């Protein structure tokens, strides 16, 4: 249990759900051949990590930040720019990641020290302003970032679709570079998720919770809340940057729409709320539910639409028009908040901890 830092999902249903999702993700290349399902699986991995790192801030430290996509973007652009400029090599990947981590950490430190002293609402405003400015900057510096078009680049040989690990044919052809790339995403996301779990279950993580619960009392016990909040902000930024780097490696492309856009920030918030705040496991559940809905709800509705149309119920069918999928995603969200105010995980995990 120590790999989970003494914080298993708890509760049969929740454990089952988490094991199911992680199991399906672990075997995705073999269970769901084809590029779309693998894309979906990779996106779930990346988002689970991204949302978990956001949960460290929101759910554990009680800090609302709108700059999470910025740090995600820093990671993605770091890898993209390095691979674009230095050519496809592992050295470029690590150089880009290293630079991105340095930038993300420094930015998070500055924002934190500057604005976490006062009310956390002020911090939320500052992150909103800085993130917007950063998005504009990224699209303006087109010589560096590729502007609105973003950067397309090649990844190291071993991660390319053409690369064959073993003679083609073995594993039904699944042992190619794309599979390797997927397992890189899955493996790194899993390890970093466990690291986040370790952080929230550490003495430091408990202090974050204490500060969220009652900052005044935490100070009276000798905890310097600015230092703790800033440290949480920096850690969350570093993990978000790693998620961004994974996303870039998987997509072989980085642009404003895939990393910096405010709609991704909203997606993160939705996933945190669906999964359940302050649980970390909520990130896995939330990301899986959200990404699956995002990718398959429209198709599902298309099927239902066709069937009902044939049955001669045009009015009902109108509601299920695939173009309305976003509306239904919204309805789904409202229902989930209504029935699971503490998120799916909060609901399934009823028993108190010792």
């Amino acid at each position, binding site marked *: 249990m120590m790999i989970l830092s*003494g914080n298993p999902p708890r509760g049969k249903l929740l454990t089952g759900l988490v094991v199911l999702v992680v199991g399906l993700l672990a075997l995705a290349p073999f269970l769901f051949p084809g590029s779309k399902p693998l894309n979906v699986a990779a996106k779930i991995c990346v988002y689970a990590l991204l949302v978990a790192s956001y949960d460290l801030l929101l759910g554990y430290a009680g800090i609302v930040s709108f700059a999470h996509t910025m740090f995600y973007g820093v990671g993605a652009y770091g890898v993209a720019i390095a691979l674009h400029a230095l050519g496809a090599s592992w050295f470029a990947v690590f150089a880009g990641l290293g630079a991105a981590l340095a930038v993300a950490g420094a930015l998070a430190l500055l924002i934190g020290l500057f604005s976490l002293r006062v009310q956390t609402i002020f911090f939320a405003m500052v992150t909103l302003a800085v993130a917007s400015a950063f998005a504009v900057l990224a699209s303006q510096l087109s010589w560096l970032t590729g502007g609105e078009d973003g950067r397309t680049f090649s990844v190291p040989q071993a991660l390319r679709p053409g690369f064959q690990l073993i003679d083609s044919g073995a594993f039904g052809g699944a042992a190619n570079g794309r599979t390797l790339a997927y397992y890189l995403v899955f493996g790194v996301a899993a390890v970093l998720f466990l690291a986040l779990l370790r952080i929230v279950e550490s003495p430091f993580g408990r202090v974050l919770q204490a500060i969220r619960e009652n900052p005044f009392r935490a100070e009276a016990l*000798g905890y310097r809340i600015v230092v703790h909040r800033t440290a949480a902000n920096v850690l969350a930024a570093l993990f978000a940057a790693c998620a961004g780097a994974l996303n870039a490696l998987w997509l072989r492309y980085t642009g404003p729409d895939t990393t910096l856009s405010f709609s991704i920030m909203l997606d993160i918030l939705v996933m945190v709320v669906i999964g359940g705040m302050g649980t970390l496991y909520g990130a896995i559940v939330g990301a899986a539910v959200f990404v699956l809905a995002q990718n398959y709800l429209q198709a599902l509705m298309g099927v239902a639409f066709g069937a009902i149309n044939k049955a001669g119920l045009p009015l009902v069918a109108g509601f299920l028009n695939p173009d309305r999928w976003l509306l239904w995603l919204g309805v789904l969200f409202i229902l989930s908040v209504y029935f699971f105010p503490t998120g799916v995980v909060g609901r399934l995990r009823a028993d108190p901890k010792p």
Partner: protein
Amino acid sequence: MSVSLETRDLTIRFGGHVAVDRVSCVFRPGELTAIVGPNGAGKTTYFNLISGQLRASSGQVLLDGADITAESAPLRARRGLGRAFQLTNLFPNLTVAENVRLAVQSARGVHYNILRPWMLRRDLIERADQILVDVALEQKRAHPAAALPHGDQRKLEVALLIALEPRVFMFDEPTAGMSVDEAPVVLDLIARLKKDTSKIIMLVEHKMDVVRSLADRIIVLTNGACVADGEPATVIASPAVQEAYLGIAPKHGAPS
């Protein structure tokens, strides 16, 4: 090293209202000082100035001879100024055990460790459990603090201060609102703390029988000013106390 604490002309104004008015006092180790006075006299505010929740308008707080008037509350806590609050002030959604462990953790200087899982820190867990036994809350260790009845929350409030292992203990009406069978647990604990003569203990308390049985010295505050300071017997007999307790705030029980 034994501790020394002093306030010099300590004053705070809220607008035109002087809540603490030039209070000068020296507190000695091994001495339990009761601070009494009518409602609104400034007792809690005086504590807030010493432990750093409020900043003085003028005057000084000296700990071990060093001027700490401008220091933040967490730094003062780390220097050994420990505080329990009159209005219960806990981590409501954390369990009773977690509340106490957070204080133990700070006492042991474990502020930033992010690598070692909390549940492997047997030292912290055992110390916290021992304190929970002391305040008779061990049965409720897994309950969220917010779910406790009032008396138990008061006990937990005291447990946090004891777990912090400060050099200066500041209790602000620790037994207020407790039932007659709950209060002795807390009072016994305070009496036990007195045995360690290297500590300073300050106790705001309205119940005169409690004050008489525990205090080595009594300070009387009225309208923010210190109007009497000395041996319990002398102070209780003084006109200031007679007036404060018989004239202004009879509801808390007059000295007999």
